[in-house]
């Protein structure tokens, strides 16, 4: 026997799917319906678990990867849902089992050294790799400033507040407030100057770092 809650959810999801179908892509009605549909599917507790018991420690990664792709597919292909052929959950689980889980297996198993950090891992972790990182290369370039281009760019009437100095401070992690205090210049003036100059030099930096 089907419980009233399940019937209720089926009706609700079906209503959302049909609402989305009735409105054109990018319309607000369709977007709201799709958002609620995805939330409803995730909270339904009725998603199947294909090939449970296999893939040991990789199962959850495969499952999440597949679910992500599945939800995106549903949003982009909601017009393919046919209420005459079954409930939304039946359609979703069929796609999950027969297509998206299978496709996710090689995707996840094929990844080298898959690491999933938690916030605590990130707090604990120290500096990566002993070899020079990209930041080191940028830092070195900023220090050398081979053609003095970085030094020459400075905030109007403040020759000491030049782009090289600002980059050095920011790469060391010094706050905008401290830099503002040091030079007696307001943060928006400093940060917008910094942004524009970074925009100007970013290609040059990249070329240097890649070579």
């Amino acid at each position: 026997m089907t419980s009233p809650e399940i019937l209720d959810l089926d009706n609700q999801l079906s209503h959302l799917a049909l609402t989305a179908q009735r409105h054109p892509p990018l319309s607000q009605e369709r977007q709201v319906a799709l958002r609620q549909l995805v939330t409803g599917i995730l909270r339904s507790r009725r998603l199947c678990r294909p090939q449970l018991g296999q893939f040991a420690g990789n199962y959850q990664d495969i499952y999440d990867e597949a679910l992500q792709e599945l939800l995106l597919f549903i949003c982009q292909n909601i017009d393919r849902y046919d209420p005459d052929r079954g409930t939304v959950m039946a359609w979703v689980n069929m796609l999950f089992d027969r297509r998206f889980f299978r496709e996710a297996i090689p995707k996840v198993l094929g990844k080298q050294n898959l690491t999933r950090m938690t916030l605590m891992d990130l707090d604990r972790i120290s500096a990566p790799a002993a070899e020079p990182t990209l930041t080191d290369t940028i830092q070195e370039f900023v220090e050398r400033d081979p053609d003095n281009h970085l030094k020459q760019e400075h905030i109007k009437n403040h020759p000491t507040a030049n782009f090289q100095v600002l980059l050095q401070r920011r790469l060391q992690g010094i706050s905008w407030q401290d830099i503002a205090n040091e030079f007696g210049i307001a943060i928006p003036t400093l940060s917008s100057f910094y942004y524009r100059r970074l925009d100007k030099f970013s290609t040059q930096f990249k070329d240097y770092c890649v070579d």
Partner: protein
Amino acid sequence: MDLSMEYFVVLLSASAHQQAEQFRQRHRQPLKAQQVYLNTLAVSAVEFYLQCMGLKTNWSVSQSYDPVWQAAMDVADLWICDRGRLECRPILPEATVMTIAPETWSDRCGYVAVQLEPSLQTATILGFTETTGVEIFPLEKLRSLDELLIHLQSPPTAAIHPVSTTVTSQFTQRICLSQWLQNRVEASWQTLETLLFPQPGLSLSLRTEADAATVKRAKLIDLSIQLDRQTVALLVAIVPTKPSPASTQTGIEILVQVHPTGGANFLPADLVIGLYTETGDRLQEVQSRMQDNYIQLRRFRGVPGEHFDIQLTWGEASIREKFVI
């Protein structure tokens, strides 16, 4: 089941973590490496959400994808096709505010809050703000995800409002003054040199000492009534104001003037300039007399996100220019 909640939960899949780890490895400082990891997860969550909603995004051309920008800025932008950069700010589990790095105050069409949880298995997209120029934004003041989609699907320079004026009615876009400070100025707003100089008696200075940060722009306004052509220049000068001890909020001081153009020495008489709130309340008004060289509003101040309108009226002709700070 109540599905009407205003947020959206995204799974942070193995692919998202792998991308984050790959970017993290490029940076030595632990804090920077952590920042890059979390920023990457936030961008991937927003990218997924917007793709579900049918919007076109391009992460690989975003600054957050580029190691140089990652190193030099606290950056988490996502390029939204036909719209611009949307900044995706990661929010730590217990946080009640969104932090926005000053180096990302320019060139952004909004800031989306993406709340993370300790295991980093899911991210919740909470809402967004267009407010720029603040480092800390309270989560309770975020605008909804529905509004975000509307905002991202509207034309780049804010909404276009029809103006109900008499003879000269026209459509105008709200001009964003904060963007002027980043040197992003609409083509119709020209430098004073281009539009007016040399012009005697022109003094558009907000402070007695020259201030490097002042931006001055002018726009030609055509107040034609049938055969009687009359053109004037609307001048706007802005300068960022320093944050006060009480607030980190930076604002802008604004001076508005109207000058004659085309070699004329005087403005037409009875030309009225008015300052209005977004809702149409008049804050101040000045009217030209016979032989006025120029007229100006009392200088005023505002903070990013505030709207105001300037209306020029001459006889039956009336033109309204809309601004957002």
